[in-house]
């Protein structure tokens, strides 16, 4: 337990200091941390799932508070909570199905007794979910949201459940935790391989002699372009350098190293160049439920320019970037201001900065935001590891990964601890 605490604290400090860069790394580390939290959590006999959920929520709340702008943390916490609920549900249904053919009686008694309160919660959750899931004909016919409907709904869930179902049913008390950890491992793996899965679709979108524009640097974009190049597509790439961090230089370097024809332009030249561009392909920081994108700063401008010239604006996003929240004033509330020293040399402007420092507000402000919000109407297509999607479909995709109960993680401090 103490090492988990120190792990959590270390991670929180890292988040607070913004030491972790990129949503993929953040997501991966969050998932790993939560895995260790789960594995170290002592599971009571009663309400195992509830205990796990509480533990994860407690940690998740701290993590989210540590960096509320890094939405990947919240996403992963919710994903893990969702996994716990799903595993629990599948176990319950398995128990209900195997009620008669169970082998060990004493365990079975325990489970039966213990699971009833959980079952009711699970049924409610399933009912809530079934409104989001595509209704199968059978569930429509049997208009009962309770136990009978559960097998069908849960079997339509992710493959994690299918695997867990095949596991040994004898040790059910330990099984939940085990299954959850398995599923989290799978999640971590998914996060790791989402680039490849997105990149696989590259050939369907990039054709010969196309001109592609991107801004800043994104590993997903790099892999995507490279995958198309691997498939013998020849195309050229315009890379905007992406002030104030100029990560575009690194991307351009990488692309050139892999043999792609690359033109490096300034951010200001985007509007001039976009009339000759066939497609804009960019990465995202997070994708909101309404299809809007929290993206590196400057992308709103690119999206507007693309719209002006009717150039498709394609956003690549791994599923860990899908955020189940709807944004409100995201330019301000989900943004972060970085150090002004990236823009202005303090040494040169020190005399201006304290020009009137004694007598009220200073004359010079420097604004250096990190993110931009691209509204859904400017996005042509999302390419995730599950395929291409319209912005208007995002809410539905998100429902596959999150359960409605977990949308608000922070609101329950009482149950959290």
């Amino acid at each position, binding site marked *: 337990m103490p090492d988990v605490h120190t792990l959590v604290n270390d991670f929180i400090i890292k988040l607070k200091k913004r030491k972790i860069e990129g949503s993929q790394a953040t997501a991966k580390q969050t998932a790993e941390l939560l895995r260790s939290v789960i594995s170290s959590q002592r599971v009571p006999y009663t309400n195992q799932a509830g205990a796990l959920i509480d533990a994860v929520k407690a940690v998740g709340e701290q993590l989210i508070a540590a960096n509320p702008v890094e939405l990947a943390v919240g996403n992963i916490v919710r994903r893990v909570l969702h996994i716990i609920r799903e595993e629990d549900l599948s176990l319950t249904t398995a128990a209900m199905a195997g009620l008669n053919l169970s082998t060990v009686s004493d365990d079975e008694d325990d489970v039966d007794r213990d699971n009833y309160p959980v079952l009711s919660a699970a049924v409610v959750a399933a009912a809530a979910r079934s409104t989001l899931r595509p209704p199968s004909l059978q569930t429509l016919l049997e208009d009962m949201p309770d136990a009978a409907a559960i097998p069908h709904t849960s079997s339509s869930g992710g493959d994690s459940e299918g695997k867990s179902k095949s596991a040994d049913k004898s040790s059910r008390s330990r099984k939940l935790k085990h299954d959850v950890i398995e599923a989290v491992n799978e999640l971590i793996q998914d996060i790791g391989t989402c680039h490849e899965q997105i990149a696989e679709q590259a050939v369907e979108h990039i054709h010969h002699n196309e001109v592609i524009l991107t801004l800043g640097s994104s590993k997903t974009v790099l892999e995507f372009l490279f995958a198309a190049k691997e498939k013998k597509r020849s195309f050229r790439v315009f890379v905007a350098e992406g*002030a104030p961090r100029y990560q575009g230089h690194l991307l351009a370097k990488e692309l050139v190293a892999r043999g792609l024809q690359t033109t490096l332009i300034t951010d200001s030249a985007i509007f001039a160049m976009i009339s000759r561009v066939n497609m804009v392909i960019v990465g995202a920081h997070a994708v909101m439920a309404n299809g809007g994108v929290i993206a590196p700063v400057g992308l709103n401008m690119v999206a*507007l320019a693309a719209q002006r010239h009717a150039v498709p604006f394609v956003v690549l996003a791994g599923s860990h970037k899908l955020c189940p929240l709807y944004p409100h004033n995201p330019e301000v509330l989900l943004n972060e201001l970085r150090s002004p020293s990236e823009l202005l040399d303090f040494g040169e402007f020190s005399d201006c900065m304290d020009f009137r420092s004694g007598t009220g507000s200073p004359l010079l402000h420097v604004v250096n935001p990190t993110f931009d919000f691209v509204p859904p109407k400017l996005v042509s297509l999302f390419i995730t590891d599950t395929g291409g999607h319209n912005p208007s479909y995002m809410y539905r995709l998100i429902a596959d990964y999150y359960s409605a109960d977990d949308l608000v993680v922070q609101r329950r401090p009482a149950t959290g601890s």
Partner: protein
Amino acid sequence: MDPRRPPRTVIDPKVRQVGFFAAPEPIASSPPVSDISPSGNSLSPVMIPPPRHSSDAARPVLFSPVPPASPGRRDSLAPSDLFPASSPTASSPCADAECAFSPGRPLRSNSVRPAAAVTMSSSLPGRGFDLTAAVTASSVPATGLMKIPSGFSVKNAGKARNASVEVENEQGSNSKPLKEKTTKAERRAIQEAQRAAKAAAKGEGKAASVVSAAASASVNVKPHKATKAPTVAASEKKGGGGERPVEKERKKEVPPPRMQYDDTSRVEKAKRRSVVKQTEARNRVELFRHLPQYEHGTQLPDLESRFFQLDPVHPAVYKVGLQYLTGDISGGNARCVAMLQAFQEAIKDYSTPPEKNLSRDLTAKMSSYVSFLIECRPLSISMGNAFRFLKSRIAKLPLTLLESEAKASLQSDIEQFITEKIILADKVIVRHAVTKIRDGDVLLTYGSSTAVEMLLLHAHELGKQFRVVVVDSRPKLEGQRLLRRLVGKGISCTYTHINATSYIMHEVTRVFLGASSVLSNGAVYSRVGTASVAMVAHAFRVPVLVCCEAYKFHERVQLDSICSNELGDPDVISKVPGMEEINCLNNQANCGNLQPLNLIYDALPSDYVSMIITDYGMVPPTSVPVIVREYRREQLWM
């Protein structure tokens, strides 16, 4: 001034003032401004001052039968203090145009003339043919004028001088009685004819420059990029085509195509003539093959070493060229003023070689200077316009002038251009634009524009309470210099980079932008990034106001920023100061597939522009072609 437009009276509905019109406050003490608000003109939506000096000085004499149609305007014309040499200047076009009425005149148009520029109005006669018919009724005395056709040629200027002096005398005696004789219909006919003649002259000027550029075997100093700054001087080469319809001539007004650098044969030709030896950039961007892409930094040491041996270029011009090359002088106005002042110097030291004609030789010399400057850095459109003005002035120098007088006249012309078209124009723009700043405004500006800076400082001096957002972008980071000056004056500023425009745009109430040029389709050709800023402002429903002096307007049209642009040093792009981890990576990656691209300008589509503020007032972008047309007429004929 266009005679069809009657002067508006004060009775006209007041509604007219709504929209793009600043309060017609009395603007005193500046000569061009006094032209803008004569009593008759003050309600006109587009304030276009009537053409001044020589054209007007010429017209009452030339078409002496025409009674002053708009006395309200005419009285504000030709302030002789601005044009010390105005009366001799006027005499030559008079003499020439008067020739048009003589029956013997058309003969001359068949004679072969030298390629170089003669006087502007000498191309008139052919066109003036139908005009003769109309005017004969008004009985212009042909006596005495008959001498001119035979004698008038540039080669024997002495004779022409005599002739024109004679003409001057005659006119003095004739003009008075003629005035009463014409009827309204006749006047109308004369005006029509005159307009046609003007259009023809203009068109021919253009055509001639193209032709002479192609066949400039005899004249070795023809600028190889003459297309960039179309010569206005009308040479007599094309003078033959007598009675072509006006419609055809209209077509010629289209500016000639610019030099395309993917045309190898022409590039070779240009290279042979160039002063500066340039090496072509190693990996050029495919999309921009039509633009010059040279290795930067290679010419400078070479040029520096040849400072004392390079005789064809005047030292002042040479100095300015080097300053362009190193980037010490940048910004449309600064470059233009520097060029004109260098030319002033050059004219001061100029002396006509024996056996040569001043206007022709000087034009050639100036053209060679300009082609040198182009080699240092491509001319901006404003500089092209200024040079075009200078050339037309040289071409219209009366042959009667002594060399010293001609030089003095040119120098004062240049001086006047600088004060009137640039300095005073900026003042007028500031005066107009400051009415659009209210207390509590948040004004966004991009890069560093002199006009906008003057505007902000002026508004601050007036005590308006506002905040300025300075948006900046690599590689030049001009905004930092602007920021420093604004903060130094005590204006509250916010500084950010171009990517954050859409973040900061929520709080902005107005966007003020400078421009390098305004093209006649309303597109604003400006520092790269301006279009992005305007686009974001448009998306956020923030008005975009463009401040641009009218001498920067150009009749060219452009839809994108690729067909015509300027490429800066690409190495600047790949080096980011203060970011070592990026730089070291990029040093070795210069070879092969990586092509840094440093665009200098972009074209901002007109639908993003709410208003263009010029020295003629505040106009919507759709009015730009009107100003271009009127302004050019004024410029050519003054």
